[in-house]
């Protein structure tokens, strides 16, 4: 479809490719290599920064430790607001991992000049630019909230499917499928749309004009990371919250 646009490609401009993958063969599986490369870089960055921040913990934090403590408090507040004061603590690592990985991935797509690295096929971009990454994250969220529900309420968790009335059973079951679907499509669509908008603008006017769109892209990517983490925490909190416990939660 975009043959005419692709023929304009030069050294610097992104090629506006969608669906062109750099495949790695692993046994019988074909793996999207460019996504793995960028994910590893993002993971490496996060590990290095966390290591540096927690290497020598001071009582009065300064520099990078201060920054990471701020990030931790931010994530803890997300979890606390959605899951509740009593249960949120074990879920902070999960919610925080989701938030940090998505946030750094999204921003790396806009801030790191991936496109300067030449691949045989396709091009490097944010890991969340690929539907497989976002579906994986969304399915992990599904698993997490099922685990949370069953571990907190045992087999009584299935009772929520016939609440408030058994007539809603099909809709309640459908909801388990639409949750990961909407989570993954929201993230994937937003990131891909950002990159496409910037790509098209760069193609039309290569200088200065794309900057506001890139700024907007940074903003929406940050909001998307926040939304993904908030929703994951909300689903987990919803799965754990029993019907008898509403009252005592209001007391606090």
């Amino acid at each position, binding site marked *: *479809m975009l043959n005419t646009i692709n023929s304009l490609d030069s050294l610097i401009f992104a090629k506006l490719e969608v669906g062109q993958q750099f495949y790695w063969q692993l046994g019988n599986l074909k793996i999207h290599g460019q996504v793995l490369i960028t994910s590893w870089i993002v993971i490496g960055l996060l590990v290095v920064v966390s290591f540096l921040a927690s290497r020598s913990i001071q009582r009065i934090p300064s520099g990078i430790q201060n920054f990471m403590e701020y990030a931790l408090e931010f994530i803890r507040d997300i979890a606390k607001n959605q899951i509740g004061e009593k249960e949120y603590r074990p879920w902070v690592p999960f919610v925080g991992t989701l938030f940090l990985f998505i946030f750094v991935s999204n921003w790396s797509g806009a801030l790191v000049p991936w496109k300067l690295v030449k691949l045989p096929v396709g091009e490097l971009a944010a890991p969340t630019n690929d539907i497989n990454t976002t579906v994986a994250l969304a399915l992990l969220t599904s698993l997490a909230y099922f685990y949370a529900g069953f571990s907190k309420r045992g087999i009584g968790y299935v009772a929520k499917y016939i609440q408030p009335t058994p007539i809603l059973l099909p809709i309640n079951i459908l909801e388990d499928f639409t949750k990961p679907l*909407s989570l993954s*499509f929201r993230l994937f*669509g937003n990131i891909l*749309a950002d990159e496409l908008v910037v790509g098209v603008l760069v193609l039309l006017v290569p200088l200065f004009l794309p900057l506001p769109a890139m700024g907007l892209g940074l903003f929406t990517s940050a909001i998307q990371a926040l939304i993904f983490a908030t929703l994951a925490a909300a689903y987990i909190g919803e799965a754990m919250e029993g019907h008898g416990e509403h009252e005592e939660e209001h007391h606090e």
Partner: protein
Amino acid sequence: MDPLVSAASVLAAALAVGLAAIGPGLGQGNAAGRAVEGIARQPEAEGKIRGTLLLSLAFMEALTIYGLVVALVLLFANPFAG
């Protein structure tokens, strides 16, 4: 690709994202207007209102993005290309 299929796909892609923009447009306008009202009535709550507004705007935007995903599938990964 069959020219009829590609013509229909391009039209469908345009309609998908265009129609999907209507509802969220109305919703976002409504939400932003109410938020401005709220801030005018209670300027001290501005921070909280802004945060909630941004979060809900992003949720509404997701609906258009679903249309966009359908449009992108039709343009770049058409299942009927055969």
